[in-house]
């Protein structure tokens, strides 16, 4: 069986970097979700316990963590849709590079909309 470290046709191009980023964001989101379900479970302990933990989500440091989370999700989601299109649509493989830049553009639009909004929520204004 081929090892993960063996070279492939994809090495070094958009195809490879989007695959690496898709993997890294997928793992990151998964570990966030494990913690997120555990902290949401505190609603079964007491209102005070839940409010204490969710309170930490409102601090400036965590506000940047949430920006990173949204960045990861937006990339993984739209790149995932690109992978699906490439697999299922006839002209998908031919256009995969254009689709990749499409993913980057949609991702940028989401971040340009979200970041100022998040900063306003956190710092007022």
């Amino acid at each position: 069986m081929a090892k993960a470290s063996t070279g492939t046709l994809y090495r070094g191009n958009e195809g490879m970097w989007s695959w690496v980023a898709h993997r890294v964001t997928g793992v990151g989101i998964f570990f966030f979700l494990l913690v997120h379900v555990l902290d949401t479970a505190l609603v079964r302990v007491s209102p005070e316990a839940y409010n204490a933990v969710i309170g930490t989500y409102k601090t400036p440091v965590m506000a940047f963590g949430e920006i990173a989370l949204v960045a990861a999700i937006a990339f993984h989601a739209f790149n995932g849709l690109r992978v699906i299109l490439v697999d299922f649509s006839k002209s998908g493989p031919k256009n995969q590079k254009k689709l990749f830049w499409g993913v980057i553009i949609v991702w940028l639009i989401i971040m340009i909309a979200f970041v100022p909004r998040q900063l306003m929520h956190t710092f007022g204004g």
Partner: protein
Amino acid sequence: MSTTSIPAPRTGYSRHKSTRSKFEMFAWLFMRVSGIVLVILIFGHLFVNLWAGEGVQAIDFGFVAGKWASPFWQIWDLLMLWLAMLHGTNGLRTIIMDYAEKPGTRMSLQVILYIASAIVIVLGTLVIFTFDPCPAGADPALLASFCSAA
């Protein structure tokens, strides 16, 4: 009258078993179908909890009580929990297969992954359905307004 039946050619006989397993095919398709549904569920979740109103600043126990008072958000969160956990667990299974080469390491990493995922799915499901928006004896200031009404 006698009829002789001739068996159709090439039935019930194959020289070797297909190397494509049904499970892997299903897992591949599941990643794509769950991905499409998750786009809607997660962006909806982030829109309501991070974007709308005061965003994350507005979240507290009463906020959760308000959302889970409606079966709509209960089902939404339940679907999101199951699909995201199964999608993520299957994704991590692929990654373990790619990087862990010793059978022992593969085996133990997979066992840890499946146990962790099962605990989170069961816990998350129980939390949605056993949630009590107005726990007895709690400080009314922390509860949703509908707890003190009537």
